[in-house]
């Protein structure tokens, strides 16, 4: 039986970690637990449930800043921002559907702390960055049972090391965040999407590179091959679609839509999606919709980050029986493997190594995740450095031990 400790405030988080330290217990650090199934299976005694730390503590739209307790649901923050025509520009994806979670009960959308700890992002990654790029300040309890703060509530800050960066994407292995401050940005007035139909993967990567290398200020670029295109919303045809999103004020979007359509015409037939279709399409890209269906969910899912223009070369080295699509102009490839219990890590890692980048096994049976490397294995010197960083924050390994790397 796993016990759950649910602190009511930051002080109790510190108490919990100190207690765990003095009793040699390991803690699973969780918000709503929406991403619990990502990483190596937890080898912990007790869950430190941070979903009780909720509430927006500061929001100043004109200063583009918002602070919240780490367990505040993302949906609550996004709703508040929307009221003020603002948003989290990093467009955090929701892993819930891919992992088979149903909204309601405990899980709604994950928490802001979880979004940061997993360094979430979305299609706008190519323009606006990931959670790390919007993470301004924090309070957190380290694995030493000490409450630290870093950063602040201002965008421009180089005072001391940027601890926000190293905690973003650390999957709760360094510290349990209690309070976070993020940069928020105005929501674009409108959007539209330019689609080129019928491209193979290599031509699609070339088309996306041309679009992103233009002054059209593309805010999302995805290639949806024909074997998965029908799963996405907003597309009129079940054909391979290479989609480029434009956001901004209406006169600007109108102008750039025409410019981009002209630029892409040599690649293939071009069609335009209006604002409603565009929003629907990118929502389904953000939620990795083809691989969130019940039948797809039994299959291992890889997330590959690579050099965008070479995405097709990575994909070509992967078994043709896998299903896949590209986001980030080719730099992010979602790959669903054909067989439930076979992530085929060796071939995926070899494919990535041929170009550069890394692969993460986002979804697989617990037994598979326990035996395979979920995150990309590192060169010895880098692995040793990462281990020393873990020790700097959590020398006894009380916070999510072994979640990213066995024994760390």
């Amino acid at each position: 039986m796993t016990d759950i400790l649910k602190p009511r405030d930051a002080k109790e988080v510190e108490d919990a970690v100190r207690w765990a330290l003095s009793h040699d217990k390991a803690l699973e650090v969780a918000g709503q637990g929406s991403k619990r199934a990502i990483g190596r299976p937890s080898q912990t005694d007790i869950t430190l449930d941070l979903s009780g730390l909720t509430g927006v503590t500061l929001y100043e739209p004109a200063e583009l800043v918002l602070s919240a307790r780490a367990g505040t649901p993302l949906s609550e923050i996004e709703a508040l921002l929307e009221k003020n025509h603002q948003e989290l520009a990093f467009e955090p994806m929701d892993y819930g559907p891919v992992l088979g979670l149903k909204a309601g009960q405990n899980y709604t959308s994950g928490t802001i702390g979880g979004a940061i700890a997993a360094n979430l992002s979305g299609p706008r990654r190519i323009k606006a960055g990931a959670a790390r790029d919007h993470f301004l300040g924090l309070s957190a309890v380290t694995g030493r049972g000490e409450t630290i703060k870093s950063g602040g509530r201002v965008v421009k800050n180089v005072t001391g090391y940027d601890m926000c960066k190293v905690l973003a994407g650390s999957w709760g292995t360094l510290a349990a965040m209690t309070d976070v401050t993020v940069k928020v940005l105005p929501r674009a007035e409108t959007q539209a999407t330019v689609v080129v139909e019928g491209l193979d993967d290599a031509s699609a990567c070339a088309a996306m590179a041309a679009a992103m290398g233009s002054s059209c200020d593309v805010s999302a670029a995805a290639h949806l091959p024909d074997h998965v295109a029908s799963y996405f919303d907003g597309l009129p045809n079940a054909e391979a679609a290479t989609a480029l999103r434009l956001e901004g004020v209406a006169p600007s979007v109108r102008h750039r839509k025409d410019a981009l359509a002209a630029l892409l015409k040599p690649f293939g037939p071009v069609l335009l999606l209006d604002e409603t279709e565009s929003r629907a399409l990118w929502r389904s890209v953000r939620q990795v919709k083809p691989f969130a269906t019940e039948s797809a969910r039994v299959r291992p899912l890889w997330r590959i980050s690579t050099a965008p223009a070479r995405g097709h070369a990575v994909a070509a080295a992967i078994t043709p029986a896998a299903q896949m699509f590209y986001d980030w102009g080719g730099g992010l490839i979602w790959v669903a493997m054909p067989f439930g219990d076979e992530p085929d890590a060796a071939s995926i890692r070899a494919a990535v190594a041929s170009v550069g980048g890394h692969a993460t096994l986002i979804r697989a049976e617990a037994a598979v995740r326990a035996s395979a490397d979920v995150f990309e294995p590192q060169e010895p010197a880098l692995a040793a450095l990462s281990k020393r960083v873990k020790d700097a924050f959590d020398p006894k390994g009380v916070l999510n031990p072994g979640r990213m790397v066995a024994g760390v």
Partner: protein
Amino acid sequence: MSVRMPEADGAVLARRAAIVKALRTIVPGEGVIATEREMRPFESDGLTAYRQLPLVVVLPETTKQVSEVLAYCHAEGVKVVPRGAGTSLSGGALPLEDGVLLGMAKFNRIKDIDFANRVAVVEPGVTNLAVSNAVAHAGFYYAPDPSSQIACTIGGNVAENSGGVHCLKYGMTTNNVLGCELVLMNGDVVRLGGKHLDAEGYDLLGLINGSEGLLGVVTEVTVRILQKAETQRAVLIGFPSSEDGGECVSAIIAAGIIPAGMEMMDRPAIHAVEEFVHAGYPLDVEALLIVELDGPQAEVDHLIERVVDIAKQCKSMTCRVSASEQERLLFWAGRKAAFPAVGRISPDYFCMDGTIPRSQLPKVLAAMKDMSAKYGLRCANVFHAGDGNLHPLILYDSNKEGEVERAEEFGAEILKLCVAVGGVLTGEHGVGVEKRDLMPVMFSEIDLNAQQRVKCAFDDKGLLNPGKVFPVLHRCAELGRMHISGGKLPFPDIPRF
């Protein structure tokens, strides 16, 4: 100088000849500089109030040499201070009497320009502007543009996480660097990131940006390059008070507009600049705001109109929209010449660098006026208004008895105020030696020790750039000890399920 540096290690000073000899076996010929006359140009950086000759200067040319120099110094317990172009305004590259100064100027090659992936791979000694110049023929540029961009290097930009006037919209260095090759103090060479967008494992690249040369020596950097906007236009707006100017900035952002740049100057700065550059700035205003918009013509025209409307509602006294590229550059010529313009009217000046929540601007400016009277020193302000980054310039004369000290006290009081109103000590210039002793104003001992433990993970002997950033140095072994208190309870009094 009023900041004390770590005491020089007499044993190292005594071994100087042997150390120089050993370094010459790693870096041949003119790559090791050991005469006082030739070392003189390295004695300070952009913070010229602080000077110190190094033990020896080494100018390596290859990653292998950097690795061997660091491994040797690690084994021998010799300190190392890395240096790019030496434009730091906070003393980040100030040498140590008993330390090797590792100059990275010879790492000046652009290794790869990859337009398809929109990245450039450059060595750290390449200047910021050279990156933009190298990709300009295809319409690209490198976004971060610190005002020293003609001289400062990418390696130094990474160390300081440099900003510039356009970082409100395009981010700081950390948002524009995708990868680096890093040599650790023990000689290990690691690669972080690459041409892909996401870090694997811990985001160590994010730690390196802004680490002020304390964590490792960067030998290669992969930066994002962007396609230039179709067009740029600027609006020059004058206000009867800085409060009105500040309100206008807030109103622009509240309207959902993120300009490419938004810069403010106060009256003393406007006058100093206008005398120097003749940019046509109005002299009867208390605050002057430059708002620059970039993008397609249709977008810029649309947004300029909205900005002008907002300015009218914010009590603006003057409002001029640039009608030509020449006029736009003239608007900027004044702002960009602010530091030298102030240099003309005062023998010396300190440039401060606090960031504040923008709503606190009127309060902070008023307090600075009082401080100016109290210390008997003039102060001019330029301000990255969009992101709240203040650059008060404190004017003093180092030849006048006690003025340096008064100027430093004045600066410290400004920075303490920045922290007190919810801001930070430094927005883009770094802590270095200049603000080192103010770190406890912003951080507790626990916070600072946590940061120093990160330092220990990279540099277990504390040999890389010691005496910068942290006011009190601890041995890593001492920091590693655990003192658990409050954990004795049989069970914490927290709800359980």
